[in-house]
């Protein structure tokens, strides 16, 4: 053991970047509320860097105290501002947050709102060692392993595979609920509720060896037990979303 209490290290962190285009407190609050509603757990307490690089309005039109207050109200933790002209830099001094220089690296341009199937891993954007905060498109680059459940999912239980596929090798009881941001595979009977593409991925699918579900949903488009009963009841089947229609087909 060494005697020193600490060591200084350079590190590359992943944070959410809120890229501001325009600001009016009502429009901003409304959009943020909708965004957070999609994935409350994801945004709760999540540190965020507010980027001013794309902001093309006059300084006096933006009240940074309100901006930070709104972020805090919806659970985000603003930690810094990034980029922007000298005028903005002067204006944010009163907020007490730090200012980071505009990213010299190619920041991910995709907004954090289009989750892709987790299986797709893209090479990370170029790393510049002297940059402390690196922006990456988190939803795209983070790979979460498929969630595997080998026990029956019982009535009253809820299983959520965040940013991943879900495989259940046993059955899912009536009154149970399984969710995944990716695809769902059930190798026993599926009798409960199953929601794939929970964060909006319309390419997600649900597969089951015996389709007896109470509700099936792909990216918020759902069908109920009554429909399933008349079409693929207790059959091997899959559900997918195509041309704005939910397809329920035997396999």
């Amino acid at each position, binding site marked *: 053991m060494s005697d020193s209490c600490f060591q200084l290290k350079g590190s590359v962190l992943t944070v959410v970047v809120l890229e501001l285009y325009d600001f009016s407190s009502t429009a901003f609050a409304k959009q943020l509320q909708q965004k957070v509603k999609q994935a409350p757990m994801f945004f709760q307490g999540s540190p965020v860097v507010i980027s001013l690089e794309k902001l093309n309005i006059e300084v006096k039109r933006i009240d940074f105290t309100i901006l930070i207050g709104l972020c805090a109200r919806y659970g985000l933790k603003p930690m810094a501002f990034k980029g922007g002209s000298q005028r903005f830099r002067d204006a944010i001094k009163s907020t007490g947050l730090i200012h980071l220089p505009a990213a010299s690296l190619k920041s991910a341009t995709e907004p954090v709102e289009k989750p892709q199937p987790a299986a797709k891993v893209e090479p990370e954007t170029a790393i510049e060692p002297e940059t402390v905060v690196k922006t990456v498109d988190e939803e795209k680059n983070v790979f979460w392993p498929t969630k595997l459940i080998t*026990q*029956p*999912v*019982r*009535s*009253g*239980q809820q299983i959520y595979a965040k940013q991943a596929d879900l495989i259940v090798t*046993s*059955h899912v*009881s*009536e*009154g*149970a609920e399984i969710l995944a941001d990716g695809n769902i595979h059930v190798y*026993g*009977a599926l*009798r409960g509720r199953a929601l794939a593409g929970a964060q909006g991925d319309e390419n997600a699918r649900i597969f089951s060896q015996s389709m007896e579900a109470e509700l099936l949903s792909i990216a918020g488009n759902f069908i109920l037990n009554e429909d399933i009963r008349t079409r693929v009841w207790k059959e091997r089947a899959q559900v997918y979303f195509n041309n704005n229609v939910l397809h329920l087909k035997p396999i």
Partner: protein
Amino acid sequence: MAKIIVVTSGKGGVGKTTSSAAIGTGLAMNNKKTVIIDFDVGLRNLDLIMGCERRVVYDFVNVISGEATLNQALIKDKRLKNLFILPASQTRDKDALTKKGVEKVLNDLSKDFDFIICDSPAGIEKGAQMALYFADEAIVVTNPEVSSVRDSDRILGILQSKSRRAENGGDPVVEHLLITRYDPERVIAGEMLSISDVEDILAIPLLGVIPESEAVLKASNQGTPVILDEKTKAGLAYSDAVMRLLGSNVDYRFITVEKKGFFKRMMGAGR
């Protein structure tokens, strides 16, 4: 070390206490030193079914709060030397049971007994969770009808997530399915779920099937566990279940419709 078995169901009125009494008695008949604990604080019934209600002086809650010793509260069965009952308190509520207190009582009992049967209250709240928390094995009592099966499914989920074994990440609680009030004739008529329907939904191994029998009600009212009456089908079915619990391979009886003889048909014609 005793094996701790919880008898639970979620739904009320399916036969938890009847089954606790019968199985506990059955284990004692097989020379296993057994204690049955009534966890249904405030609605105690086990003492009635065991026929020892007049001998209750101290109860489970008294022991937990230190007002009585375990030996003072344990009631020895008059019929079997290996059988003891720890009654619930009728004047308190479920909050009187603390995890620490229950653990101490179970640890003390564990030293002397082979089996501890915990008779759970209905529901999925604190009382039921306390009864199943320390269990090594669980007997899930289910009637062959949909609401009972769904509630059993719910309690199985709680066993897998809220028991001590689940919290400590050890071996999961061993689960057994006990189907009670089974009537093969009504299954054929489509009025009742079949054994395979129930097994299909709950997906746990079957321990026993107790046929619907008038003898159960009679035994309860008399304070004699039904297993002691070897002339009844329910009693025999409970004996079989106990043998399976002890590891024997016993064939199932009374699960198909009997062919009625001429005499029986005449006698039963009026019903």
